[in-house]
């Protein structure tokens, strides 16, 4: 019969009370753990997707929308910009590299992105199978598009107009899957990549109906030149957005302002917009966190009340234990142990609950939205949740433990 077994025996003596306090603590700690997991993974995901992209340029509108649509591929694009303006920007000495994007269509909810080889190269994507797109209407797909969207090499599919499935189909100009990328852990996994010219061709036909064939043949041929659309494209054509990398840090201070003031285009800085986004998300999270903290504090009060009330009935037990040879210190530690044990078990249950919920919510969010949340991962702050629980249990048990410490055995036993 060691101290731990004795503590468990006493907790089991009041099962309802113990269960209630465990539940309260578990929900509180679980909520905090879930929030930690969510913010951590969201932030990491946002940072990974935006890593290395200094500036995004697109049509005027909301800068947040521009970032969301062109880096993270959620939200709809702000519009298109003329390739001529893009070409002018590409010539700027402060620009090291531009990744042009042509957006607008999707297949089964996966976005079709017209771009160039430097786009997958930016994310260090590698081919799992097949080849990169080369010829018109060839597509190389992300790992998730293959595993969950069910596309394989050789498949022919028609893009749908718009970002959600169910838009008008471009049935006359179907794509052919020529390659599948290995998983990158980035937004790329959920994209269908093709050439910008392919996107143009699909839309040219769509806009001008069937008799525009000659025209599109011409456009398609122009893609084969090195340097891509920024070097050789028709300045009157349009792209949706440009992912820009700077040559030096000074560019961040000058280029965005220059673009916003002197061109019909808009420049947005991913770092700034992500910080703003996290702030917005953070405001909602703070509300949840306050709720969770209230739960945890109630659990602490519950543990205190339970131990304090139990003390009235346990006075004789404690006096007898002292008579049997237990020291004041032993009794003090015994009561503290009970509080800490309750808190730690509650916290561990809470962590399991938090991670379980994250895993469940994650599988749902992945299907409904493009948010990635996994349960089987740790955030180092979680160790603080355990430390906090130990402290909570000890503090809640302190007063009852001191009361037990001070019991006058002779007086208590004389009364019995």
């Amino acid at each position, binding site marked *: 019969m060691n101290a731990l077994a004795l503590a468990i025996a006493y907790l089991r003596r009041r099962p309802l009370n113990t269960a209630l306090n465990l539940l309260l603590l578990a929900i509180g700690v679980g909520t905090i753990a879930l929030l930690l997991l969510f913010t951590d993974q969201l932030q990491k995901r946002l940072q990974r997707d935006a890593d290395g992209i200094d500036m995004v340029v697109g049509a005027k509108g909301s800068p947040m929308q521009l970032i969301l649509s062109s880096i993270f591929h959620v939200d709809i694009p702000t519009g298109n910009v003329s390739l001529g303006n893009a070409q002018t920007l590409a010539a700027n000495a402060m620009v090291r590299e531009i990744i042009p994007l042509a957006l607008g269509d999707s297949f089964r909810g996966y976005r079709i992105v017209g771009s160039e080889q430097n786009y997958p190269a930016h994310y260090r994507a590698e081919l799992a199978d097949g080849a990169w797109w080369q010829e018109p209407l060839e597509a190389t797909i992300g790992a998730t598009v293959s595993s969950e969207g069910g596309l394989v090499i050789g498949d022919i599919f028609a893009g749908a107009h718009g970002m959600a499935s169910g838009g008008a189909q471009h049935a006359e100009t179907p794509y052919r899957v020529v390659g599948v990328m290995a998983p990158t852990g980035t937004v790329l996994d959920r994209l269908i990549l093709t050439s910008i010219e392919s996107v143009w061709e699909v839309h040219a036909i769509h806009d001008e109906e069937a008799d525009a064939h000659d025209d599109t043949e011409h456009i398609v041929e122009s893609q084969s030149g090195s340097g891509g659309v920024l070097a050789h494209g028709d300045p009157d054509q349009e792209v949706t957005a440009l992912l820009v990398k700077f040559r030096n840090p000074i560019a961040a201070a000058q280029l965005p302002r220059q673009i916003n003031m002197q061109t019909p285009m808009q420049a947005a800085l991913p770092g700034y917009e992500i910080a703003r986004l996290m702030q917005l998300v953070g405001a909602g999270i703070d509300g949840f966190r306050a709720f969770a903290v209230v739960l945890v504090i109630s659990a602490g009060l519950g543990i205190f009340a339970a131990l304090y009330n139990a003390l009235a009935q346990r006075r*004789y037990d404690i006096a007898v234990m002292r008579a049997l*040879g237990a020291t004041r210190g032993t009794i003090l530690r015994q009561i503290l142990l009970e509080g800490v044990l309750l808190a730690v078990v509650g916290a561990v249950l809470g962590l399991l609950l938090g991670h379980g919920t994250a895993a469940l919510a994650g599988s749902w969010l992945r299907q409904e939205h493009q948010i990635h949340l996994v349960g089987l991962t740790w955030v180092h702050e979680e160790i603080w949740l355990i430390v906090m629980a130990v402290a909570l249990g000890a503090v809640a048990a302190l007063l009852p433990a001191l009361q037990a410490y001070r019991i006058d055995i002779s007086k208590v036993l004389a009364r019995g």
Partner: protein
Amino acid sequence: MLEVAGIRHSYQSQLVLDLPHWRADEGDQWLLHGPSGCGKSTLLHILGGLLTPSEGIVTLAGTELGTLRGAAGDRYRGRHIGIVFQQLHLIDAITVRQNLTLAQRFAGLPVDEARATEILTVLGLADKANAFPFALSHGQAQRVALARALINRPAVVLADEPTSNLDDENAARALALLRDQARAHGSALVIASHDGRIKDAFEKRLELPARREAAA
């Protein structure tokens, strides 16, 4: 073996016990006797090291209890003194066997399950080892309390009113068991009781005089 000298004890400056000298030898069986309120329980607590007398010294097996401070006193009590309380005070949250091994642990002794089994068998409680105290009859609970007092083979067993609230037959049985087991374990026995029925059974009696409640 167990000896007191110049013991006086007061509660809130009211003297309730005045015992200039008394001693019990090894294996002795004593009855502390006297009317209610004469200080029997108080003396028993002093002998058991549960209460420090206002004045005087208690010596058990050559050790003066008053010199043992804090944890040392607790350990000494756990090891050498067995106490049977009037209300028994078994710990309800744990089993009969755990009540016994807890007494070993709190005394600072290694847990000896075989010893627990042995004493439960001797007292006819072998089949109750894993029962919880609240599920025992009063007689069984009394025997468990006795087993717990004896498990560490104490030098002296103290019992406060072991026969109160029992009918004649059960009182005689409880007393006989207490005396037999104390003898079998080589422990001295000191019983505090105002029960007139058992008075004549003891050769060694310490009569405590009645105290007037308001005496200054």
